[in-house]
């Protein structure tokens, strides 16, 4: 069961990496978070741990509903061009994504001896999600893609923590959620400012500071 959910998360990350439109990227992130929520919920039911239920609830409220809603509203308000500005086209991006997954698998088999299939898949998936998030941040021109890339990296870390060390201590988990929420809000405020000052949100055209 867990494996299917993890594959779901990974599949959504591929969707995010392929899509050309801002709203598509946001929905991709929404679904990625949804699968992460399912995973946490499944774990919560199997262990009966109250804290995990709270974490799952936070995932649902913050990452699946709150942040995507905020991002969609922002995209509409700043009337950003629907196009994400792909520096690397969809096909090549997908290929890179697959390659990054393969790299993560190699990394996993290098660092961990004594394979356990579920753990291996979880680790590989989380590492490749982190890397693909980074890929999104680098190879998309729009400021919004950078925010979502960052969030996707954060999701990857969450998956890694829950599969590797059985989740972080509760208080750490909560403060990371708080951090994510605040950072998205702040990044969003800066996107508004950039839009107002530069009349576009194309990060690749922000080149005042050099050397």
């Amino acid at each position, binding site marked *: 069961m867990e494996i299917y959910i993890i594959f779901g998360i990974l599949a959504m990350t591929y969707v995010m990496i392929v899509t050309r439109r801002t709203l598509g990227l946001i929905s991709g992130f929404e679904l990625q978070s949804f699968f992460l929520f399912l995973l946490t919920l499944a774990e919560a039911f199997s262990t009966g741990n109250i804290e995990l239920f709270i974490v799952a609830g936070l995932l649902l409220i913050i990452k699946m509903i709150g942040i995507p809603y905020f991002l969609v509203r922002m995209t509409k308000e700043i009337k950003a061009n629907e196009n994400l500005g792909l520096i690397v086209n969809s096909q090549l991006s997908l290929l890179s994504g697959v390659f990054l997954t393969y790299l993560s698998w190699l990394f996993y088999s290098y660092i961990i001896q004594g394979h356990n299939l579920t753990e291996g898949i979880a680790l590989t998936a989380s590492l490749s999600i982190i890397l693909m998030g980074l890929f999104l941040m680098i190879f998309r021109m729009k400021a919004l893609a950078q925010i979502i890339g960052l969030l996707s990296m954060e999701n990857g*870390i969450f998956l890694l923590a829950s599969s590797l060390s059985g989740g972080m*201590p509760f208080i*750490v988990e909560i403060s990371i959620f708080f951090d994510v929420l605040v950072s998205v809000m702040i990044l969003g405020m800066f996107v508004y400012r950039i839009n107002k000052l530069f009349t576009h949100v194309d990060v690749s055209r922000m080149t*005042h500071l050099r050397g």
Partner: protein
Amino acid sequence: MSIRNIGKINALVHFILLAGCLFIASRFLTPGTSFSAFNFFYLDSLSAFFILTIAVINFASALFSIEYIAREAEKKGISERKAQIYYLLFNLFTTSMFFVTIVNNLGMLWAAIEITTLVSAFLVGFYNTKRSVEAAWKYLIICSVGIIFALLGTILFSYALSMHTGIKSLNWTDLISMAGRLDMNMVKIAFIFILVGYGTKAGLAPMHNWLPDAHSQAIAPISALLSGVLLKTAIYAIVRFGIIVNISLGGRYFGHLMVLLGLVSLLISASFVLTQKDIKRLLAYSSIEHIGIIAVGLGIGGPLGIFGALLHIFNHAVTKSLMFFCAGDIVNAYGKHNMYAIRGTLKILPFTSFMFLFGMLALSGFPPFSIFMSEFLILTAAFLKGSYIAAGMMLLFIVIVSSAFIFHLSKVIFGRAPEGMTPVKEPASGKLALALLIILISIMGFAIPGPMNSLILSAAEVIKR
């Protein structure tokens, strides 16, 4: 309430905090003292040393802010509300930096460092110009990505702990007590991530790209905090993990990585510093240089190297704050950042220029100022250890940076002032802040006061164990 009065109250609060921190530091003078509470807070001499450094710079910055912000409000039309927001953010920023140094849980340490980024981004983008918003965006994005790698490293550390011992914990004290039983391979990989992550925040090259932009675009008192202490909190995090790595793997791994990154930072700084035009960017590149020196000192290790590195952390914080304060006043008086257009400050701002001159000499490593002492200690440690190549390269880069510094800034100070410019009145509270810092620089250069010496010694003891 007027902006000046808010500033005065703020300075008073930070003065009281400084007194409190001096008291706290005085409790940690003997090696091996530690304090923990609720399984959440943990303080030892190392934390106390960083707390003291942060408190000193906070107070100086609060003192300098009084007139600086009030004048900005009068001249540039920053609204009263925006000035109030400045003080709110100032305090959030300083609080989050204190928080970094007192938590035991490494996950919380991560969260605290992330909060410092989020809060200070507003202070970088405070003027809301194209340049400052661009700098803030770059700062936010690069540091957030960097720090995600640090979180990854932190998780891998906790995994390295649970692999053989079955203990699930992110507490530094747990990791340190079990450091001998950590999975060595995992520790090696995890520390790379930590170094990339917190190294980004510390401004170690090649992850330094955001630093010159953010530090040059921020408001002057905040530039001082960013360069003076924020970078050091990231160094603090690296050192906390480094201690674990040292016990687990022996000193070489941590040492080699730190020396390597330190030298790369020095190299980057030396290659960019000559061609700078912006006075505050010049200072920012000098921060990269000094972070490099600190990293080399920590990497060389040994009692002398670590003592030198810690001393350098304090000295650089004090000196760089002085320089940023002066640069802020100079930039305001001339209305320009470009050094080629700023000439003859000695006539326009006599007191500030004198301080700037002393600061320049101190930062370039001239005796009898304090930075000479710490650089000398680190170099001696390197020579004693037989790391001649590292020492030689460090010396070469320091010479390049220093000569570029003197080349640029002496023209700024002694050149011909533009026609028709009249001397600017320098406010008393700003002068007081500068004087305070220059006194610290001079005292620390001649002789380190006894209590400070024992504090640094016992902090070095924490790193060495």
